């Protein structure tokens, strides 16, 4: 029973970042890379994966060190850890996918100050176990990647008429979408769509699995009306 509950909530740690607590589309964090590198789906995907790697790494290390880091200097410590992982990812990309490295340019180094990463460190990793932090990082990273990929695909498909560089409808491109105003248009529409999906009317009766109050709740037998 306990195992089932743990694995269930572990899965939740991973899944919550995808849609329900999507850092970009629901939390509206990390807007800068979301708008800046999504002209092409390929760059968006690369940025998403790079950020995910940094996020998992920093979450794990910060979670490991959560009892060692003094409260007074925790932010500088987090930044140093994050910057370390960003540098590693930067070298990896430079070595193995130089094309992507050039395309992302300065935004790769700017992953360091991406507020999703610092936010997860501050809100989650410094309070939870290593496994949960890793899963949280992976989930949030995948959510960010998903959002970037969605915005990037729409912008590339309708703005340039290609998808991952393959020509689909270049004659019918609406090139304003690859420019900054188009980025805002598409991001706004995607946010509206995802929030519509994520925050549909909540189910009338929710089961008690996953409810934090299940143990102390009086109505824990038959589910509650919340």
């Amino acid at each position, binding site marked *: 029973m306990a195992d089932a509950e743990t694995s269930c909530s572990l899965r939740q740690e991973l899944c919550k970042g995808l849609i329900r607590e999507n850092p970009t589309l629901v939390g509206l964090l990390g807007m800068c890379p979301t708008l800046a590198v999504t002209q092409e789906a390929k760059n968006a995907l690369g940025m998403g994966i790079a950020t995910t790697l940094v996020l998992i790494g920093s979450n794990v290390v910060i979670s490991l060190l959560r009892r060692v880091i003094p409260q007074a200097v925790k932010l500088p410590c987090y930044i140093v850890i994050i910057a370390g992982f960003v540098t590693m990812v930067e070298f990896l990309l430079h070595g193995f996918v130089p094309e992507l490295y050039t395309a992302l340019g300065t935004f790769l180094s700017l992953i360091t100050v991406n507020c999703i990463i610092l936010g997860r460190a501050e809100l989650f990793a410094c309070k939870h176990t290593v496994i949960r932090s890793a899963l949280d990082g992976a989930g949030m990273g995948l959510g960010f990647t998903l959002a970037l990929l969605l915005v990037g695909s729409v912008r590339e498909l309708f703005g340039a008429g290609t998808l991952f560089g393959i020509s689909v409808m270049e004659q*019918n*491109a609406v*090139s*304003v*979408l690859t*420019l900054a105003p188009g980025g805002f*248009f598409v991001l706004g529409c995607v946010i509206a769509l995802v929030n519509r999906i994520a925050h549909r009317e909540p189910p009338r009766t929710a089961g008690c699995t996953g409810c934090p109050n299940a143990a102390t709740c009086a109505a824990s037998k038959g589910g509650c009306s919340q």
Partner: protein
Amino acid sequence: MNLLYVSPSPHTSSTMTTSRIMACVLVALMPTAIAGCLNFGLRAALVLFVSTASAVVYEGLCRVLMKREQTILDGSAAVTGLLLGLNLPATIPLWQVMIGSFTAIVLVKQLFGGLGQNFANPAIVGRIVMLISFSSAMTTWQAPHSDAVVSATPLVSGNASYWDLFLGNTAGCIGETCAAAILLGGLYLCLRGIVQPVIPAAFLGTAALCSLAAGDDPLYQLLAGGMLLGAVFMATDYVTTPVTTGGKVIFGIGCGLLTFVIRQYGGYPEGVSFAILLMNLVTPLIDRLTVVRPFGAVRQKQEAKDHA
């Protein structure tokens, strides 16, 4: 026994409803639309029809999807669509027209809450999005009364006679070439009291003065390009222009100045739509600057300072 009835303001009422105003604007646009069709043929009529019809359809669909009161019949969507069509060259592909009118009606107007809530003139934003997206199609102009495609407006070529400019015998967007028809429509709007001539006068006056100062022919600058169409029909939209007369003067001067700057120094040959859009965006600020003091109100600044 006589009772004293006390009712809240406003105490005057008017028969001028939104749909009546829009109908008047449509009537005022008719000479321009007809002149455009006469100059550029059936294809121009088709563009105007597609832009108007698609704008009305988008408006209707949006209101249905958003579960709001249906506003097709107030005519504002038709005005926006027709204005957008008049701002396009006659040779533009029709699917591009539909994207422009989608931008205007759905993105700029309905997503912000419909008529009265739009932050900028929908037709202007539609045109600018099209100009940026389809720059070659938007700057390929057909010569009047023929199928020949020329690529320069009188603004660029600079060799049309005043008479040609006045009657619209030049290349350009469907509605911008015939100055006579635009002035006729503007006169009608002024006589019906729909618009005050303040903004067009300030707009055109400023632009003329600036061109005079820069050594250009002011009359040519006013007649060529889209300045008349913009000044009479686009810069007089109620929603996106200041309320007070003083504010309107500031708005008009700003439009004229920006148009001159863009035409003279900018990368685009025509700057009217960008100028009006920029001034639309600062309209709330102008409104705050030009708040009217209520009748009988005393300046309270000194008092407030004393209290502080």
